[in-house]
């Protein structure tokens, strides 16, 4: 369970995140939508304790993420290339992440087998360092690295933006399956309203740091969102 209390973050006087109260229950898939500058990525960074909040706190399982490091073992995130170690080969990166999460090499190999279709043959055994992969393939490596950790909480920042259409659909399917298997709490931000309403159980609409809508997904959600984003 994740609880946000009075969270405020400002940059040079401008408010980027301002969330008075928010509670996320275990097993929810949260879709974060909003135009550029709404504060989605900043909110993710706050959850990962990568930036310091001006006020307020985020509790993950009763503990403030900025104080205790207990959230790290069950939280996985991929926001951008800054999460990849670009001078490793993809395999080395997976083994490294696996090792940090107490998964043996054989274990990781087994896991990667199930990703064969997702990688589409251009990631594993490519003879390239991650820095030489295309942006889309880097993203695949990042997402696989997250899922490899078998996390309780997963954060993905705009995963659909860099993936080809086939992989986008595969990702949605995979997330749903994994969610069904173990009650994973997932946060996804996206500009793709179709995908996000399809995958999420709850949608948070952000505008200038505020959460202005908090919707439980049903058949009307998509049109409601489209109304908001109408030009």
């Amino acid at each position, binding site marked *: 369970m994740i609880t946000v209390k009075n969270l405020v973050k400002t940059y040079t006087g401008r408010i980027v995140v301002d969330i008075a109260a928010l509670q996320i229950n275990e097993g929810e898939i949260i879709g974060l939508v909003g135009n550029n500058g709404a504060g989605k990525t900043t909110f993710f*960074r706050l959850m*990962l*304790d*990568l*930036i*310091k909040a001006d006020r307020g706190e985020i509790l993950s399982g009763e503990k403030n993420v900025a104080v205790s*490091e207990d959230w*790290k*073992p069950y*939280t*996985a*995130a991929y*926001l*951008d*290339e*800054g*999460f*990849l*170690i*670009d*001078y*490793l*080969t993809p*395999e*080395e990166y997976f*083994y*490294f*992440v696996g*090792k*940090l*999460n107490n998964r043996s090499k054989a274990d990781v190999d087994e896991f990667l087998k199930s990703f064969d279709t997702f990688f589409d043959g251009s990631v594993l055994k490519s*003879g*390239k*360092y991650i820095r*030489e992969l295309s942006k889309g393939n880097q993203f695949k490596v990042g997402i696989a690295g997250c899922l490899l*950790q078998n996390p309780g909480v997963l954060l993905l920042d705009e995963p659909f933006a860099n993936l080809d259409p086939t992989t986008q659909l595969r990702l949605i399917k995979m997330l749903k399956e994994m969610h069904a298997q173990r009650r994973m709490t997932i946060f996804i931000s996206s500009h793709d309203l179709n995908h996000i309403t399809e995958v999420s159980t709850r949608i948070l609409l952000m505008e200038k740091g505020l959460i202005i809508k908090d919707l439980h997904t049903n058949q009307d959600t998509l049109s409601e969102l489209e109304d908001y984003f109408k030009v």
Partner: protein
Amino acid sequence: MIRILLNHQWKSFWRSRNAGKSLALQIVIGFFTVYLLFSAIAMGFMLQKLLTNFFPGQDIIKIFCGFILYYFLSDVLIRFMIQDLPTLTIQPYLVQNIRRSQLIRFLNVRSMITAINFVPLFLFIPFTIMVIAPKYGGLTAFAFIISIVSFTLFNHFIILYVKRKSIINSWWYVIFFGVIGAFAAADYFHFFSLRDASAAVFIKMLAMPFLCMLPVGMAIIAFINNYRFLLANLYLEDIVSKSRKKEGAEYTFLHRFGNTGELIGLDIKLILRNKRPRSVAMISLLLLFYGFIFYKPQYIQEGKWYFLIFGAIFITGLFIISYGQFLFAWQSAHFDGMMAGNLSARTYIKSKLQLFTGVSSVIFLLSSLYGFLNWKIVVIQLAAYLYNIGIQSIIAVYFATFSYKAIDIGRSATFNYQGMSAERWVYALAIYVVPIVIYLPFGWLINAWAGITAIGVLGLTSYLLQDWWTDILTKGFLKRKYKILDGFREK
């Protein structure tokens, strides 16, 4: 067009995120440049007098002519080390309505504005005007100056070409240094005299001024060659076309250290696979040979042990000092991931300390070969080693928590001041002052060996307290973590 591009360069310099700091550096570099140019002018004007004094009774024009090719040969070497490849982020310009030839012309013009191109002019032209012109006439002197300028430009463009080529294929390095080395060796062993050749060439030119068209031709060919190479390579793809298949590596001996071992393995790969950290590590290894300077027999005979201990600290600690300088910044590109990943800050800090211990141990073993000179050197190096793993490494990690500037590890290290800032100078100071402070009371009041013992014992004690230090360093690290993260995200 070239003016607009120059203007953009100017803006990019002033508007870069760390303009303030790089301005301070530019001023320092500018100061040295002015000093260098000033020295060159002064030399140029005094050359006549110097040559007369050093070679009394000889024809100074002949001596002067014999010196010119020497200068240009060493000029080639110096350029290879310090001359920057002019780069302009061409991407946004390629799709604009600008001819490719214009972009290249800009790159070439921009590259010519560098101090090293003015040194030979300042050095040689005064002599030419003061001595050669009166004797051989204005026209000859003019032709002479033309040939000096041409040689300068020839060197300039040849080096740009060779440097670019050697980025693509490292054989160019080998061939380049082979050719220069062959010239130097041939001259040194008297197979052939560069001095005679130089004198012959330039004296001939004094007799037949039109020969200056020869160097002019060489310069033009070098320019065209460089121009064509750029024209063929002005594409977005990297010029680097190495398609070597990359293999993963595994360091099994690190497995028993758990997560700390994983992180150390990561650091090792970082060093091996990235240009800048690799050159830092190479230099630390090469400087092991400094022992031959610090451990001179006369110092040992005269019992100047204090000199040896500081030398030893420097030699065995160089890796910690130089790699530690950017300890976290090396990972700035993926620091977000490191901090969000499943590893505690304490493990991270601990891995850095253990990396230092491991590498220092290897360096200590290697440097023990100096024991063949005198066994006492090994004892001194042991003290230095204990100091390095116990105290130096703590200092390095502590100062690393204050460095908030990202660096690009793919760029080469020579004259690359990226990531340097005021804390770096404090760090350098701490590295010198701390061992002196430990040594002095014992070394002064008792004797040098007491001072050396103090350094070793204190180092060992501090090393045994490493867990305690790790806690303190982690606390400081967590306090400044956000600042480090913020800084590293601003590339």
